[in-house]
């Protein structure tokens, strides 16, 4: 992959994705964290486009940026967190260490392996993925559908048949303004 466009796009997207991932860690408010997470998802989708994986990119946008982002927002609003400070446990240092060790190992491996490289540029990934999903990987495909149904039922059962009570006022900046009645 060469040329001015793709290379500069890669560096911009790399900085964007790593930066937004770091901001998820550093964000003061949990809503800001979610917004940075969505930015991270979007920049990763752009990265997939750069890798000429159009379908995966669009699926990433649809599922992560659309569905999971909204889901996380819902969960945050349903579970108002009283305190915004002290979001970190005492494992900040060890966690950073662990992350650095894992990342370092992977980078070390990446540079010390002789990858058999080729340039697989798929002209249209939709056709190819469709064929692959329904022929070679038909069984995992079916299992995935079962998994999705199981997850749906499971989520409904866990949250309970009592109906979801939305409590929008208790989250976000307005949490401070809430006064208890009764």
């Amino acid at each position: 992959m060469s040329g001015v466009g793709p290379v500069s796009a890669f560096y911009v997207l790399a900085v964007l994705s790593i930066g937004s991932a770091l901001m998820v860690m550093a964000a003061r408010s949990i809503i800001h964290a979610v917004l940075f997470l969505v930015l991270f998802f979007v920049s990763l989708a752009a990265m997939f486009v750069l890798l000429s994986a159009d379908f995966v990119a669009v699926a990433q946008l649809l599922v992560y940026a659309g569905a999971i982002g909204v889901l996380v927002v819902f969960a945050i609003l349903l579970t108002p967190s009283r305190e915004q400070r002290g979001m970190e446990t005492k494992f900040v240092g060890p966690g950073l260490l662990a992350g650095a060790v894992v990342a370092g190992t992977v980078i070390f491996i990446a540079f010390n392996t002789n990858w058999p490289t080729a340039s697989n540029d798929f002209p249209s990934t939709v056709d190819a993925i469709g064929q692959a999903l329904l022929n070679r990987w038909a069984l995992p495909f079916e299992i995935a559908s079962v998994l999705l149904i199981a997850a749906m039922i499971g989520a409904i059962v866990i949250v309970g048949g009592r109906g979801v009570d939305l409590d929008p006022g208790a989250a976000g900046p307005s949490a401070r303004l809430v006064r208890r009645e009764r």
Partner: protein
Amino acid sequence: MTALSGFLLSQWYDLRDLGNPVRALIDWINGWGDGTTFHWVGYIVAGLIGAAAIGLFLGIAMLSLIWIERKAVSRIQIRYGPNRTGPFGLLQPVADALKLMQKEALTPLAGDKIVFWLAPVVIFIPTLLVFGVLPFGPKMTAANISVAVLYIVAIGSATPLVIFMAGWSSNNKYSLLGAMRGIAMAISYEIPMVLSLLGVVLFTGHMDLNGIVQWQQKYHVWLIVLQPLAALTYFISASAELNRTPTDIAEAESEIVAGYHTEYSGMKFGLFYAVELGNALAVSGIWATLFFGGWWLFGLDRWIPAWLIFLGKMYILYGALIITRGTLPRLRIDQLLDFAWKFLLPLALVNVLVVALEVTIWQENGISAGIVLPVFAVVNILLSVVLVVGYVQSFGFARRQRPRRARLITDTLAAMPQ
């Protein structure tokens, strides 16, 4: 004739395809130097021209839509509508925009200022991006991507998050209520929307919008004839995501003031307003492309510029949105969600099933399209009429209300309940 057409057509001045002059320009740029060095300049110029074209088109379209909508709605409401600024009030949108720019842009003190400022800007992005894939003509797509149908859905699914940003950062209870309503509705209506689009993709075997238009051109039929159910469910669910009147619960004026943009003033409010119009235009554009043949009009597109046909269809279908806005009252949120889950979702599922069956029959037996498509059309139209009418008859609200008129009593004493 052939010599004449060769002289007149497919040159840079052939206005049937506005892409021609752009292509001529790009070819000229690519020819600089030894013919390969300056390709990146052409790359950037092409992108800039595409973005500028979409931006310019959207700007003009929004200004025109403000006038059209105000005028049409006022006709529905037996008013004159704007008629003071310029001939027929044509300068009213400009006056509106100037007024909005002059107004003070307030920021709530206790809100989240960065997110508050960001939301009206970010909400423009999905609108712009959708117009990037709409085919205005056979070769007039800013970005012809192979997964355009899925792309549209994916882009659209980002909007509720921006609505949430606007509602949450305002630190206003009405805004937050509106944002939550908007998100709940967007999630519910996305499913029937995707399913109705799935029917189209299954039937045509194309996921790029131009391919779908060309399919309709090839078989000489509009897809609404073949898939009325998908057209209906798409139109309802897409217009539900637009926050326009029958379904504008996210900014329900009479209930929660203005929903998620209660706190916005000046041009920031103007941006929300413009995005609403732009999204409505985008939906009518997608509807025109998928179900009404896009830039193709039974061969007329050879003589009339294709982009004019597309624009005409887009504006005519926008009229449907104006009429629904002017005539229908708003539903309550639980009724809207019920409608999505209990009416649109089953219909869309039935549509997908029927389409899958029909495609299988068609492809497996290799029947010629001339025989099979009319049959499908008749079957599908009958099926959709039966389903919709049957649903309304058995579950509609009108069934349950008994006295259509108030009881009239002349002898009040005798009728007084004891």
